[in-house]
């Protein structure tokens, strides 16, 4: 169940003042928090949280990208990949604590502007290296292996074509089309 939603054309963008943009600093101000949602004004999608704080979800999305950085993969897919933590947190208070406390700790270790306030990936990765053996980090990383890479929508970005039986396999579709050898 994915509750990522596309914003309808003409819908008012949530208030995103220049001041807010500047305040958010480092991470390009791509994601904004509005009510219980994380919103990407530029890419017209939003993610509503039910158990986790939306700020937590926004940080989790950045953390997911820093763990498995693919510059050609839009934030939306990282958001979908970590969405399961919100669902699990709704059912399991221990999981909610794991994520909320984990993110709080991450922010604490990152200095006064928190994790997303660190401008360079290297700076954020240095903080992640400090916590990579914690159950929190392993829960986020482990979940991403399936949560990110098993999204059929991301496969074409990597050049993976997925299911092929219904197309008759690759017998007539390039199983041996290599030309550069």
């Amino acid at each position, binding site marked *: 169940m994915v509750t990522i939603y596309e914003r309808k054309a003409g819908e008012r963008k949530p208030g995103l003042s220049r001041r807010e943009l500047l305040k958010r600093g480092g991470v390009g101000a791509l994601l904004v928090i509005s009510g219980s949602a994380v919103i990407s004004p530029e890419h017209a999608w939003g993610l509503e949280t039910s158990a986790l704080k939306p700020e937590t979800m926004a940080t989790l999305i950045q953390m997911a990208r820093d763990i498995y950085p693919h510059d050609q993969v839009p934030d939306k897919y990282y958001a979908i990949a970590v969405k399961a933590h919100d669902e699990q947190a709704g059912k399991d208070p221990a999981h909610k604590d794991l994520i909320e406390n984990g993110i709080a700790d991450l922010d604490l270790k990152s200095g006064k502007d928190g994790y997303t306030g660190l401008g360079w990936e290297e700076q954020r990765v240095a903080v992640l290296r400090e916590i990579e053996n914690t159950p929190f980090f392993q829960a986020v990383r482990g979940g991403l292996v399936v949560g990110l890479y098993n999204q059929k929508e991301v496969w074409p970005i990597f050049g993976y074509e997925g299911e092929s039986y219904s197309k008759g396999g690759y*017998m007539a579709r390039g*199983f041996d089309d290599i030309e550069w050898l």
Partner: protein
Amino acid sequence: MAAPFDLKNDGVVVIIGSGAGGGTLGNELAQKGIDVVILEAGGRHEYEDFINDEWDSFAQLAWTDKRTTSGDWRVAKDFPNLPAWIVKAVGGSTTHWAGASLRFQEHEFKTLSTYGKLEGANLLDWPITLADLEPYYAKAEDKLGVTLTNNIPGLPGNNNFKVMKAGADKLGYKECHTGRMAINSEPRDDRNACQQTGFCFQGCKWGAKWSTLYTEIPKGEATGHLEVRPNAMAIKINHDASGNVTGVVYADKDGKLQEQKARIVAVAGNSIESPRLLLNSVSNQFPDGLANSSGQVGKNYMRHTTGSVYGVFDKPVHMYRGTTMAGIIRDEARNDPSRGFVGGYELETLSLGLPFMAAFLNPGGWGRSFTTALDHYDHMAGMWIVGEDMPREDNRVTLHADMKDEHGMPVADVHFDDHANDTAMRDHAYKQGSALYAAVGATRTFPTPPYPSTHNLGTNRMSEKAADGVVNKHGQTHDIKNLFVSDGSQFTTGGAENPTLTIVSLAIRQADYIAEQMSAKSL
């Protein structure tokens, strides 16, 4: 028409497992008019039900019942509850296998004589030779429709193979071809030809790859002498006061315990489940489990020395298109101790889809070193290393002291430590694989750690003397004459070859022996 047999029918041969060993043995016996009940732990999914999706297929077919691991192998750290990637379904791991069908080499039946005593290794010669098995290899190759045998043309090479072949030529390897594959290169035995679909590991939706699911089993059922009972998890083998086995207790599809009476029992549940069942079959008479007077049940667990090498190129490869195991290099399979290890290894093309590549390329890995590899997924070529590993007494399957499954049966623990010979071989293969891809212009290569084991071998090994192993040269247990082992757990040593062809050959041979013994009233 499948023949349903009564639980009290004590004239049947009960086979536990329907894969390469059990499925083949069942059909061979049924063809001879012998009544057989196969108890299969998994469900029955016909080939049109297979799924071209790695995780969905894994959920459909894989054996995911809890197991534990220990030892220094990396699988224990990366996949502590998944020591093996094998199948729980009718057809067993013949639904999942890649199809490589290679005969053992002569010296691989005589490893102790050939390699000599190696510290920390429990080497032993097989009680049979290549010459003993050759007629059965020939029958098995015909049964499976192995390419490049019986005038069957080889499969066409896909992109992944072409990269391998170009590198093999540059390195001067002489024996590189599209393999001896149990995959139809043309229609045969009422089955389709390969359509280069990929997803061989997920079950062949064309039925082009041999699997007992749609060959041996329906053929056996058609005789009226074979019943395959799915969702029947064997728990314990019973015996009488004379020490002969009398039946198998199993949990049926509703979890209810049943006992199928038997004249003969053949265990073919793969090298983790087979010793688990024997070890769990304790009684006052056999306090250490059945057929275990040697103490060897569960020991000498082998899993082949494996690993993969992936290479990234500046131009596209699309390795996932077509046959997963699309070709092989056999030059390193020889025994040549000057390389720093005994035994040898094969190099075989392999590809994983993006989801499994993410899971297996470097389990636990993260950050740009990891993700930039996946960024070039469509520019990757890949190969798998499969080499002979050393049997060791301490590498073993045991019953977990307190963890039990839903039926109250102790779960299996799989302990494995690499022998120094295994590590030396793997390192050599990593170097050769990387050099091969570099020779074709790879800009980066990845020595990828072993996946959960697909070739599980040796835990009920075959031996001349009863003290050295569990079964004799026919797979009959040394201790109990009407109890047989019919899977890869019989292997005395593992060879460098993918094991299925040898398992099938041994099963055909065992069926002849059982039929002879039955007509002679010795069984």
